[in-house]
């Protein structure tokens, strides 16, 4: 093949491919730390304007992948291109086109919000004439305009995080990387951060790559890749993934479960009898409800439709639940964030 000659190290987008094309593309990307195989040859691509989530437990290889894409860690094998530039051979070009929000805070809390942003604008070569307008814009996007001249040391953890997100997109990157953006934040603040992220996507058509171990956060993404032990075990939109693991479940509580079960069974539905209700599998739960009530033949007291969750998807693919690990982790992260903020 001719490719082998012109691009001996494999497929990567061409150097001038800034405008269109994929935001991120990896082919068999892997990373080894001595004996430890942190990332085992993963391939995926992210289109422009997509919100893409890496969902996986602690130690699954999420952060290592992000670090390789951000040129902070050299891949041991495979290839990766960000905004059309090879992360191994064109790190400078990649760095100019990405925004990064780390797990740990990286603000200078003895500077004001604006000074932090101005510092970043210079280091990322935002043209002098545009600096002020960009700072105004990103502060507005995260609703921190009124804290502009306040020292970051007076900010709450959530405000600091939102300021970091604003900073990450100050230089209008092609891809914004958010590594566990809401770790250590309380639920209300997490919701605020998500509002900001979604507003960014809407108003700036930003491509966002985020890692998370919160199922509910992965739901916000256009596409999700489930990663476990350094490998992608499933990719798709949240709905696609859920459909892969099974149908919806409709739960019926009737005045006479035994009779209802017999009727439904006769009508060709797959019925399981629970202690106080009947569970019926259906491709489209809501649509099946009227037919089910009719087929039951007895008075129905209540109806409940369950869709598979990403928890079910995760369990299906990894045989484990992510929940147990994350509760503990979030707590330690919170403690860490607190000490780091003095």
């Amino acid at each position, binding site marked *: 093949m001719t490719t082998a000659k012109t691009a001996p190290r494999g497929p990567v987008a061409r150097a001038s491919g800034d405008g269109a094309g994929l935001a991120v593309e990896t082919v068999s990307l892997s990373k080894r730390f001595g004996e430890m195989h942190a990332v085992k040859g993963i391939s995926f691509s992210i289109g422009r304007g997509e919100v893409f989530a890496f969902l996986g437990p602690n130690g699954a290889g999420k952060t290592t992948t992000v670090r390789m894409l951000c040129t902070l860690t050299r891949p041991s094998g495979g290839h990766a291109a960000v905004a059309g530039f090879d992360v191994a051979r064109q790190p400078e070009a990649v760095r100019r086109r990405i925004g990064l929000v780390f797990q*740990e805070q990286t603000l200078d809390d003895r500077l004001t919000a604006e000074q932090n942003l101005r510092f970043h604008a210079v280091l990322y070569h935002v043209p002098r004439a545009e600096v002020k307008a960009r700072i105004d814009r990103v502060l507005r996007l995260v609703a921190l305009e009124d804290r502009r001249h306040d020292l970051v040391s007076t900010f709450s953890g959530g405000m600091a995080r939102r300021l970091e997100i604003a900073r990450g997109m100050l230089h209008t990157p092609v891809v914004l990387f958010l590594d566990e953006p809401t770790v250590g934040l309380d639920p209300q603040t997490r919701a605020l951060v998500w509002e900001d992220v979604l507003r960014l996507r809407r108003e700036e058509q930003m491509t966002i790559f985020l890692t998370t171990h919160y199922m509910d956060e992965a739901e916000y993404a256009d596409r999700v890749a489930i990663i476990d032990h350094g490998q992608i075990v499933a990719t798709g939109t949240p709905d696609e993934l859920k459909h892969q693991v099974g149908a919806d479940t409709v739960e019926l509580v009737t005045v006479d479960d035994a009779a209802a079960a017999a009727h439904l069974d006769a009508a060709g539905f797959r019925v399981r009898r629970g202690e106080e209700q009947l569970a019926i599998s259906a491709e489209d739960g809501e649509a099946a409800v009227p037919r089910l009530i009719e087929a039951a033949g007895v008075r129905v007291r209540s109806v409940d439709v369950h869709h598979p969750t990403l928890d079910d998807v995760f369990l299906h693919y990894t045989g484990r639940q992510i929940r147990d690990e994350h509760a503990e982790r979030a707590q330690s992260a919170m403690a860490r964030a607190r000490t780091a903020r003095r």
Partner: protein
Amino acid sequence: MTATVLQLPGGPLADERVSLGEELRTVGMVWEREAIRFFRTKARVVSSFVQPVLFLFVLGYGMSTLVGETAGFDFKKFLFPGIVAMTVMSTALSSAISIVWDREFGFLREMLVAPVSRTSIVSGKTLGGASIATVQGTIMLALAPAIGVRLTWLAVLEVIGLELLMAVTVTAFGVFVASHVQRMEGFSAVMQLLLFPMLFLSGALFPLNGLPGWLTVLTRVNPLTYAVAPLRSVVFAAQHMPPAAAAKFSSTVTLFGATLSNAACIGITCGFAVLFLALAVAGFGQPD
């Protein structure tokens, strides 16, 4: 081969380079940040004067009675340029602590992942710390009348230039040390360990001639020796010093039996400055 990925046009992939203008803009911004942070911590501004002033008056008056006067010139006047140098030195050395701070509080990362060279960041840091140290040292000159030291405009300008050179050398050295120290406590300990020997062996506090051999060797190895001597020379040049006083309170430094001129001292200091800057850049953390 994977089928539908964009193909390379052929030839090696060229990376983008940061223009000199952009690098200089970064140096300026890093410098500005150091200045903002310094003046925001008022305690640091004040505390960096306390020790030198204490040394000047306590040590100066104390030793003057012991050393006595030679042709109207006493130890206080000898000590004065040394104290100015001491102010510059301690401020410059301690300003490098910001590197350790930045590491502890994560800001170092923000700088290291940016598309700029480490040289720009280290240069900005060094110039920032050096400027602060120069300002502090220059403020000390205000005490000259209290000591009876006469200053001319020319002497002040020369002193400022020499302070800046000394400050760059010391800050670069501090940045080099700081980039190899992981923890805050470690840095403070190392700085205390370095500051006083470097200060005492630099000629800031006593003349360097006629010392025992081993001490002579130590003072000549100390880079600061070559920065203190010209600083004292230009201050002394503005005084009316009888030959007897000039002989007793020597401002010059000898190396291998030859008395070094100011130009030679400045040359040696510049050499150390370049060396320390190179070491600082090399030691400045790669993004792990």
